[in-house]
């Protein structure tokens, strides 16, 4: 992991052509396609937002899955042009329900909660400079990497960790949508995810959690490096809200792995 390097380069460097996971298309589009307008949230009391009542209708799985192409009977996280190919089979139903659930949860996150005022602020007042395109797309690359990793790792997790994984996957999708919006506002085109990523060969929960911790570390390092490059205070503020969320992910993943939730008084990736 390189906290100080070019995040997109870090991701590219991590790609091993022998083993990969099919990213399956534009997941941000899948999220947008899968947003269910009837999803709502009523926030709870101060500092305990989740205590409010949550009302979520099942997201339209067909639409979300359709956006990433018709799934085969069993989607395989398979080798891409590999001489020694290894495959990690994941039941199609898992992946479909993962994406559908993630889309619903993302819609929930985007529809209400604390994000709405921030998003409105960005839309209404913030100027996104063309010079921010590079950093924003680099961070989008890292988010795509995280989305692929969560999608691959969740089937290996036990019920409690899988619940967390699904929640975090939905949040990573929301980050990708937000970054794509910012790229559009800067007059650019958001990067698409590559065809495959090197995610190693996780076989059980411990290895899957180790992969996800690594991914979160990469993300934190990338955000920390890119934050000062951004020209506008509003854009920086938006990205630091994502950074803080990634830090929360890392704390929960550490606990799930039996470690202390924090590794120090500063979160540096």
């Amino acid at each position, binding site marked *: 992991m390189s906290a100080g390097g070019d995040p997109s380069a870090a991701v590219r460097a991590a790609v091993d052509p022998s083993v990969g996971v099919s990213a399956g298309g534009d997941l941000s589009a899948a999220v947008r396609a899968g947003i269910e307008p009837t999803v709502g949230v009523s926030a709870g009391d101060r500092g305990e937002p989740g205590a409010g009542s949550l009302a979520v209708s099942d997201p339209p799985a067909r639409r979300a899955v359709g956006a990433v192409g018709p799934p085969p009977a069993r989607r395989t996280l398979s080798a891409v042009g590999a001489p020694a190919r290894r495959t990690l089979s994941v039941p199609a139903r898992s992946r479909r329900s993962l994406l559908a659930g993630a889309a619903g949860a993302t819609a929930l996150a985007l529809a209400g909660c604390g994000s709405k005022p921030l998003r409105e602020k960005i839309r209404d007042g913030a100027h996104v400079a063309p010079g921010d395109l590079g950093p924003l797309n680099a961070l989008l690359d890292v988010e795509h990497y995280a989305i692929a990793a969560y999608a691959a790792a969740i089937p290996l997790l036990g019920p409690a960790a899988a619940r967390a994984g699904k929640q975090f996957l939905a949040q990573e999708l929301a980050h990708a949508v937000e970054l794509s919006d910012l790229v559009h506002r800067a007059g650019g085109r958001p990067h698409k995810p590559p065809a495959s990523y090197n995610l190693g060969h996780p076989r059980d929960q411990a290895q899957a959690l180790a992969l996800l911790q690594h991914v979160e570390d990469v993300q934190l390092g990338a955000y920390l490096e890119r934050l000062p490059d951004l020209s506008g205070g509003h854009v920086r503020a938006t990205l630091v809200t994502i950074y*803080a969320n990634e830090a*929360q992910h890392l704390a929960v993943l550490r606990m799930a792995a039996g470690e202390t939730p924090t590794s120090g008084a500063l979160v540096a990736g």
Partner: protein
Amino acid sequence: MGGKATRRELVWRAGGLAAGLSVWGGGEALARAVGADPQVRALAYALQMERLGVIVYGQTLATNVLTPAVRRQLGLLAAEERQHVGRLEQLLAQLGARIPSPSPRDVAAAQALLTRHQVHRSITHIPTQHDALRVLIDVESLTEGAYFKAVSVLQEPALIRAAAELMGSDAQHWSVLSGIQHHGDVMISVPYPFVQGSS
């Protein structure tokens, strides 16, 4: 909508105005203490919130309502809060700013500061572990909010990174506390994809 406001609405608005003026007044006092540099003001405000956190952690740890495991965890988080204070003092010193005298100075001042920020929970009477966790979650929200504001104001790359590192740590604290409070329910301990705290 255009009709007369009810008495409840009038009272609510008056309360909000008073709270707003109170917080604004506190901000002015802070500005007088640390000067006009927006970077210094932003960091000094974060320092004030972190010092508040240290006092509130101290108050909760002084009670006998915590289970041993929770006490141990809060002790670790409190130690990190103290490190945050030290880091902010270091950053202010690097900016050549005068480090503001400790504020809030004591428990009473901390309670008053919480009230100014619409946190109406006692830190002198904490009857249950639930109450202890609630007030700590509120304080962590305030520190997150301080860094969220700071990041949009800060210009120096090193300061931006430092604020993000500190905010990330406080966001982790928030999730740990909320996780304890809600038996590890991640839907509540990490509820939103965008963390901006409160002010």
